[in-house]
């Protein structure tokens, strides 16, 4: 244990000051305004008159160190050896000399990274692990994201113009690590069958009370099997959230036939204009169809185009739908409305239409 005490621990992250370029250190907290110069490029001006040019490069987030080294090279070449990543996992190159912008964009293009995502644009899709690394996944993450981004790339690069920001996110299961629940368009992996309980293993691997408590709909009851403690699932009460599986490996739900994807729309996070709000169910189920999930891609593209053609400037997806009303949105998007769309969880009653304000 002597070793252990000599170990360096609990140092936390490096201080940001060590990581920031001099122009930022100098003008920290002293920026006065910004302007978008072209897709993916903006300039910030400081009180001092200093200018900082940002070039935002799209990223798949899952990147190898070999790619990161290339990013580092570009940072050295154009940015005095500094770069940053964004909260949506893009890479940002920070220049003081605008002459570097176009060559940098060309170099990024050469290594396969488009520039864009700033202003009224679609930026990268926040997403999660999927089949790459998570045991919980009802669908893959990176694959769908790649297929969708390929299709909507013109909205990232600015080739196609849109009324405002549109944020897409994907989570591969109801744990929602991507925090997709407040996205303009959310793609959510879902199960559709109850857990296949390994009745014998439950008692050995899991804490029965925790398993019972894990179920939001009280579908899990303690039970006895051959004199040993286990659980049983009331299948009609299960809505396949997989929380039991999270606490107990003996209750897997993954299922190649019934797993798939649901689509949610109209959430947002910012306080701009309207308050933050959750996304709402648009399409209850699309089967998993790897490698490129064409039905999911089509659906997202259609929703984006519909919004782009009809929303007013700065109007987010949900703000647009709230203006035209949900029934009209379903009609315009040619989406069927079904029992699945009607909330039946705790606060369901508050989602009923409690007025005669309808678009007929």
């Amino acid at each position, binding site marked *: 244990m002597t070793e252990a005490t000599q170990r360096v621990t609990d140092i936390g992250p490096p201080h940001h000051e060590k990581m920031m370029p001099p122009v930022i250190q100098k003008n920290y907290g002293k920026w006065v305004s910004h302007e978008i110069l072209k897709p993916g490029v903006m300039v910030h001006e400081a009180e001092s008159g200093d200018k*900082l040019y940002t070039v935002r490069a799209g990223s798949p*987030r*899952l*990147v190898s160190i070999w790619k*990161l080294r290339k990013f580092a090279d570009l940072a050295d070449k154009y940015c005095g050896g500094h*770069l940053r990543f964004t909260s949506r996992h893009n890479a940002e190159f920070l220049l003081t000399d605008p002459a570097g912008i176009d060559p940098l964009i060309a170099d990024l293009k050469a290594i396969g990274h488009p520039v864009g995502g700033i202003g009224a644009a679609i930026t990268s899709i926040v997403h999660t692990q999927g089949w790459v690394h998570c045991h919980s996944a009802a669908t893959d993450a990176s694959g769908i994201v790649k297929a969708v981004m*390929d299709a909507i790339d013109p909205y990232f690069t600015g080739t196609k113009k849109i009324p405002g920001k549109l944020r897409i996110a994907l989570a591969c299961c109801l744990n929602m690590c991507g925090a997709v*629940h407040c996205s303009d368009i959310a793609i959510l992996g879902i199960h559709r069958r109850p857990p296949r309980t390994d009745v014998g293993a439950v008692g050995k691997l899991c804490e029965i009370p925790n398993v019972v408590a894990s179920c939001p709909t009280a579908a899990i009851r303690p039970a006895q099997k051959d004199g040993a403690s286990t659980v049983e699932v009331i299948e009609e009460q299960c809505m396949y959230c997989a929380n039991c599986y999270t606490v107990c*490996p003996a209750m897997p739900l993954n299922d190649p036939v019934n797993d798939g994807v649901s689509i949610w729309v109209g959430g947002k996070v910012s306080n701009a204009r309207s308050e933050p709000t959750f996304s709402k169910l648009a399409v209850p189920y699309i089967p998993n169809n790897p490698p490129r999930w064409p039905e999911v891609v089509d659906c997202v593209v259609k929703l984006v185009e519909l919004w782009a053609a009809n929303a007013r400037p700065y109007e987010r997806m949900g703000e647009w739908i709230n203006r035209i009303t949900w029934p009209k949105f379903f009609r315009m998007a040619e989406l069927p409305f079904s029992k699945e769309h009607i909330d039946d969880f705790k606060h369901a009653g508050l989602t009923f239409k409690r007025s005669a304000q309808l678009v007929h």
Partner: protein
Amino acid sequence: MAELPKTPLLDELEKGPWPSFVTEIKEAAKHKASSRDLLGLLERSYRERLGHWKHGGIVGVLGYGGGVIGRYTDLPQDFPAISHFHTMRINQPPGWFYTSKALRQICDIWEEHGSGLTNMHGSTGDIILLGTTTPELEPTFQALCAVGFDLGGSGSDMRTPSSCVGPARCEWACYDTLGLAHDLTITFQDELHRPMFPYKFKFKCSGCPNDCVAAVARADMSIIGTWRDDIKVDHAKVKEYADKGLDIERTVIRNCPGKCMEWDGATLAIDNSACRKCMHCINVMPKALRPGDDRGATILIGSKAPIVEGALLSSVLIPFWKPEPPYEDLKDLVRTIWDLWAEEGKNRERVGEFIQRVGLGNFLSAIGLDPEAEMVAHPRENPYIFYAVGDKE
């Protein structure tokens, strides 16, 4: 090196304009056996439409309880190099700023000890080092510490705080988001590394109500910059926007949630006493409008994903807070909340769910805060009131 496995399905995902994660895995697969096996496993998942990972056991580094996600494939015979394939979560520098040197140090360490694959970054904000074996965890950790990096959280502990770019590049930052995130991370090292809460606890710091780190949706404590005084207006610049064709009536005025703006074609009038600090007008005319000078933050509490009781957005706890390093007032508040939640929270109950269960009023009494009208969207609608003092006379 051995040949890459055949991946006809994944190869489809190398087509198209967007950068491909498959290409990244293939690059790593050229160098590392684990990434090669990951590639094969993933192709198999694509073929079978099924993940092939098992529940992770508890693995980690000495003295820490979190920061590593244990992961094992259920096909170790076919893909032995990923029979263990744990991820390590590493605290990002606040604002996700790097020198090329620091980035290369991480790359070098991960080339030596892991798969060579990363997420830059994870959804919580950490650097995700994607896949290594149990024996490599401790050496990787020590190598990282040597260059100034440390582990993030996992399990029932505090998670790595994250912050928007804020004062480092944004003119709207109402407080030092990076400074606060860093300070909280350093102060609460123990809570970050040694799980002892009922469940996870996340901080996110956004510099203004645009909330560029989505704090309101996914942080147990969401600290969102705002201001109290008047929006600063440069009337000449407003006129310029109008002259250049901005339809101020339609684009700005009608979208103002406070309905507190008027535009007569020449002058913009703002009734700041009804302004909700939503940022919209400022967003539309960044050269003409700016947040006021009396800046600070609103502290909100409790957001989270749906499991178990349904998703929550954070809700107002401190309507206006003046952040001053070393932020002792905030830290005291946080400690008070943690103590209460540790004492009375149920297993796997996030602080937001805890408040839902005990009630906001009771929660406030327990942590010693007075109720304020800002904490609710509106007062109660139902008459089922527990009167605090029944006057008995």
